[in-house]
């Protein structure tokens, strides 16, 4: 039994592809991505918007998709981890994470790749301090952040 007013029709572009859907008003964007669209790459690590595992880019802005309703994404252009590599070709950020051992369990990795990608678009030669500041919203429990910082610095160096 669905009551009128508790769902919303939305149109959203994700990694360049248009999607039309009817979403429950209360559905979080991250659940829309994962459950409705089957895009499992964006992860959930908390319920308070603290951990960054759900990080995506919405209309060019780094966004925690658990802090946004799917309904709010109507008309938006969203980039998720699935859209980063092109035809299986990893980007410099992804390659750098691989070469510098910037991931262990991989759970925080999609969020970090999005954060790193977003940083390097704005700041092609970040200092270590700027890198750490840019990823302060992403919790990683495995790596101690050392190799993540090295990965991002290396990717910046690559692009330079």
């Amino acid at each position, binding site marked *: *039994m669905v009551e009128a007013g508790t769902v919303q029709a939305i149109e959203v572009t994700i990694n360049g592809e248009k999607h039309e859907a009817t979403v*429950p008003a*209360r*559905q979080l964007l991250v*659940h829309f991505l*994962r*459950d409705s669209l089957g*895009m*499992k*790459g*964006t*992860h*959930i*690590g*908390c*319920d*308070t918007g*603290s*951990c960054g*595992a759900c990080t995506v880019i919405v209309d060019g802005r780094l966004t925690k998709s658990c802090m946004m309703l799917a309904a709010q994404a109507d008309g938006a252009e969203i980039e*998720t*981890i*699935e859209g*980063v*590599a092109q035809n299986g070709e*990893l980007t410099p950020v*992804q390659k750098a*994470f*691989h*070469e510098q*051992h910037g*991931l*262990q*369990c*991989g*759970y*925080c*990795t*999609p969020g970090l*790749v999005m954060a790193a990608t977003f940083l390097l678009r704005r700041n092609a030669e970040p200092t270590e301090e700027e*890198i*750490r*500041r840019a*990823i*302060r*919203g*992403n*919790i*990683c*429990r*495995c*790596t*101690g*952040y*050392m*190799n*993540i*910082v090295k990965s991002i610095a290396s990717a910046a160096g690559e692009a330079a």
Partner: protein
Amino acid sequence: MTTTAPTETPLETGRYVGQNVPRVEDRRLLQGQGEFADDVWMHRQGYAHFVRSPHAHARIVSIDVRRALELDGVYAVLTGAEAKEMCQVPFFQIAPEPAGQIEEYPLAVDKVRYHGDAVAVVLAETRELARDAAGLVDVEYEPLPAVVDTVAAAEADAPLLHEQVGTNVAWHGTYDWGDIDWALENADHVVEIDRLHFHRFSSTPLECNGAVVNWDPGTDTVTVSSNNQMPMFASMVIGPTLGVPSNRLLFNTRDIGGAFGIKIGSYPQIAALALLSRKAGRPVKWTEYRTDHMLSAGHGNERVFLDTKVAVMRDGTILGFKTRAFDDAGGYLHYEPLGAVIWSQVCCGCYRFKHIQVDYTETLTNKCPTVPNRGYSRLQHLWLIERIVDIVAHELGFDPVALRKQNYVQPDDYPYETPNGCVYDSGDLPRSLDIALELIGAERWRQRQRELGRGSGKRIGIGIGSTLDSGTNNFGQARIINPELPFSGNGEAAYVKLDLYGEVNVNLGTTPQGQSHETTAAQVVADVLGVSHEMVHVTAGFDQRNNTYVAFSGTYASQFAVTGLAAAQGAAEKLRKEIVELAAFALQADADEIEIEDGTCYVRSDRERAIPFIGIANLVYSNNAVLPMELRDRYSLNCRHVYVPPFQVPDPAAKRGNLTLTYASQIHACVVEIDEETGEVAILEYAAVDDCGRRINPKIVEGQVHGATALGLGAALYEAFEYDEDGQLQQASFYDYHAITALDTPEIKTADIESPSPFTPNGAKGMGEGGGAPLHAICSAIQDALSDEDAVVSDSHNPWERVWRLVHSGERGEPRGVVVSSRDGGESVSSRDGS
């Protein structure tokens, strides 16, 4: 009492072992194509949500599920009383009597015993509906007084958690090796420390617990697709409770988003989900919310040490110590009280203490049950020992570096037998310490510290944290806790085969959560078989249907490099032998003339005569009539190996035995700057020197050292689970539980020593947990910074407020909690208590 004999054939560094081979796991994880617990989906599944107690201690008066069931889309609700009816027996208890009388079922029955204790579970069509429905379950509680203090819980008048047990003492025992009373009698100095407290925290893996559990009505088989990291332990406990035999309780895992020991503790929830699935006739999907994780997944051991007395000689030799330890198990015993013996793997820490007495009490309290958090039980004891060494240095005026080096187990002492019969395999602690101090520029900072003086508003401190990471434990130590337990030894299984077209396939019994098993196992197997590591496919995750498991299978306790890789090595060696024999037949040569290169077998003296793996596989799989009968019977190209370490059963009466096979070490050093006005601790330098024997993949080892360091620093400065007097958890989300971030974490300088273990097939030692060196090092640094203050760092958690109190402790006239008695020329002369 045994000394482990060195093994015969250590794995040589080949093409891949010892190299920084990049990880095969990365490709899928970097593209968001990993398969984690919430990614698993089953047709007809419902979503589960637990109803949890808001009270720390209460009687369950009634549970009314009618409103929940009336909600459209709700499939079923299960209460504790129903769960008990459906169970054959309560959960198996490790504890001896009387704590063995604890009756725990998958959901709370009659009483709740901690804030977050689950009383019911709801199954509904969507995640959101399950949560709505859980909110509609009406539970009436009669609150009871709660006990949250570990020591108070042991008192006779404390509120009783489990009535049938009659006490909150889950276990008590006295460990007594050497003769500490003699040592204290004859020591030149006795340092008495009133109270040391190791706090409660958790590694909080980024991925919470999750599972899809299906009790299939057709086959009466329960399938558990989860991120539980010790599936056979879970199976051993919940199988008899559910009344499901082992061969119909099938666990599997895939990618796991960190575990750190916490995901050993999800078996009660999994059991509840199995019953819910059976009741509802549907698969049950559960993805734990972070809040639920903080409340109920499991916390690390909190331990209080009272009345510690240390015997010290004039020359700085520390003879030993006695202490009364109180460990906090929480509301139920999940894996506890094993922690009551696990610490004794490192009874003397890095040091040559000969006399140790620990009066150990484990108590039940109205808090979240304890689980084996990273560094399980050894962390707490190693911290105690480092505090002892640090406080002794501070009180008696010894140089903390010299005192440690003097008392360390020396390089020539290995293999070193400790007072309780454990054998430290190898290491070089003094050199590790020297390297760590050099990395932080200790001399320069000591100079700077002297120059800084009073009145600058800042204090510099240099700290040292020495620790061991004991790996591959002998489960026989469980008998020291409870002699009735039929457990001993350890082991891990691996399966290496050539598949239909000659592909090399590996299955493991492990449940990796970021430790790179697919990559390192491929390195080992590739070197044994003489193939490129890209030719070796390691199937990710654990699957019982592969039959590649033993009771100890899983990933925990810093043992994979030994147990998992030795199993893979053994299976690969068996396979290599089969391949060589078959090649010898095919090429009409002797076996010792055959060499393997990149997946092809050659006759060494005539390389024209060759057969690739695909040809070998063909002979066995689809063309076996060309083989003589004796080869057909003997070779299958499917080789299973179980590595079993050479343990004996420990002696429960003497509480002695060879409890762990390997001892990796980590020596950390740091420089901190304390702000006198705020108590903020800034880390100016940090270095970690690890020694884990032969490193299979150095970069991966270093990543583990980084990770352990960050979590240790997080616990030292930012992370704590605290309960108020009503048993309400104060940190149930990442707002309040400050998980360490990239901004908080300093640059971690690392160096390594490789002291191969003589006891393992590959010379490696398990590592990964780390041993909590940052906690020891930060406490040591704060102690050093405040050496003028007479402050005593006595807590493992030092947030700003606590440090501020330490800075100003002199002014505040608080008791120091340390008394030194010194003997001069045979007479007990002075007693200084710093008042």
